[in-house]
């Protein structure tokens, strides 16, 4: 399937016909609402909050944010502010009379709100567009860093942001998450249906301080069906000097590594990694 990001810039791609198609397609509506609910679960808001919707489009996710607790939105109704770069999309949102405030703005130019404004931020299928620079004056990394710096400042301490996006490849995934980390966020990636065509990637960002329970590992604690792969712990253990090069642990780890690569590896035994005695 072709990626719309590769064809045109977002403000031109989402013209009147494309915006209407996007908003009226019941398949897209279903996917968007599922992802918004998932993002709300990850935000775990406890009281009615002020939320930023980045790339709100025609307000598909906003409608869910404005819904009440009884309609399935935790701690709702929330008040939201959304911005999008496509005027046609915002036009559709106007026709639908959504409750949130709308702005025509480019997320890659920053987030024009004063520090500590929002309790949370949400973004559904938008930030992959930031990886495209349309003119020679700007670069993808510059746009990403301006966006994440602005977002970090505009969230209150202890706030969270959940950004769902469709990464083109692993490089893009790393580029986005490292830009978020550089801005000061505690970042983690949550992947739903990994390895399938319907894989959905959520970047879960946390701002330190406040009543927050750690980073993404705290966010997903107690959630069912989530495996945590903490790269930091592995790196830390190695750094502590537990594992000397040439030691048994090192040999075993290397053998496992080779086995994962599909190489033929000798079985481990009690003699693995032992020193050979001098014969006489």
């Amino acid at each position, binding site marked *: 399937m072709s990626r719309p990001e590769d064809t045109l810039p977002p403000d031109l791609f989402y013209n009147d016909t494309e915006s209407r198609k996007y908003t009226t397609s019941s398949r897209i509506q279903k996917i968007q609402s599922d992802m918004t609910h998932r993002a709300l679960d990850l935000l775990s808001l406890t*009281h*009615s*909050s*002020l939320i930023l919707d980045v790339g709100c489009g025609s307000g598909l996710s906003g409608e869910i944010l404005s819904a009440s607790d009884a309609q399935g939105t935790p701690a709702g*109704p*929330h*008040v939201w*502010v959304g*911005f999008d*770069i496509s005027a046609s999309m*915002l036009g559709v949102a*106007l026709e639908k009379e959504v*409750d949130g*405030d*709308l*702005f*025509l*703005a*480019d997320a890659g*130019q*920053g987030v*024009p*709100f*004063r520090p*500590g*404004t929002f*309790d949370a931020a949400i973004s559904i299928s938008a930030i992959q567009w930031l990886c495209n620079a349309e*003119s020679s*004056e*700007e670069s993808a990394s510059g746009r990403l860093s301006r966006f994440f710096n602005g977002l970090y400042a505009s969230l*209150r301490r202890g706030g969270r942001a959940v950004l769902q996006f469709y990464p083109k490849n692993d490089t893009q995934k790393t580029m986005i998450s490292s830009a978020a980390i550089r801005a000061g966020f505690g970042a983690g990636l949550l992947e739903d249906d990994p390895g399938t065509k319907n894989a959905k990637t959520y970047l879960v960002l946390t701002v330190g301080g406040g009543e927050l329970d750690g980073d993404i590992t705290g966010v997903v604690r107690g959630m069912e069906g989530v495996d945590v792969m903490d790269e930091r712990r592995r790196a830390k253990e190695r750094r502590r000097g537990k594992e000397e090069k040439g030691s048994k642990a090192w040999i075993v780890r290397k053998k496992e590594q080779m086995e994962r690569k599909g190489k033929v590896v000798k079985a481990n035994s009690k003699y693995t990694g032992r020193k050979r005695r001098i014969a006489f």
Partner: protein
Amino acid sequence: MKILTLNFLTCARKLCKSSNTAFPLHPQDAELEIVEQDMNVEFLRNILPRLMWEELSGVVGELGLPALPPTVPTLESLTEKKLKAAENDPTGMNVVEVEVPSQVALDLHRLLLETCVKEGKLVCGSCGHEYQVREGIANFLLPGHLV
């Protein structure tokens, strides 16, 4: 755009980030409208400590709305207790105490969430850039040389 949002919005230009006159943006030639919303005391209680009251009073003055009290209302003043007849009680003899939004909360709700800027422009106090507002949507797209 709600008056509430106006209390958080700053100029989008990078040069204005460090200037303290970039907030608040000053509305000009503003056309206001009232959009009815459901009352939500919990949200008001959440947002009240984050409001910049002085700037809010300034903007309210510029828009020609009735002046605000000089101090921020306390969180306790948002609700008041009222006696109400208990449900399923035909005699009306039993009364229960219920919390209802006070007049202060109703006024705040009217101002912050129901009063919207429909047309007009927002002017930055530092660089003088004008952001157009049309049909309630503000245009914050900056031309390349201003970013």
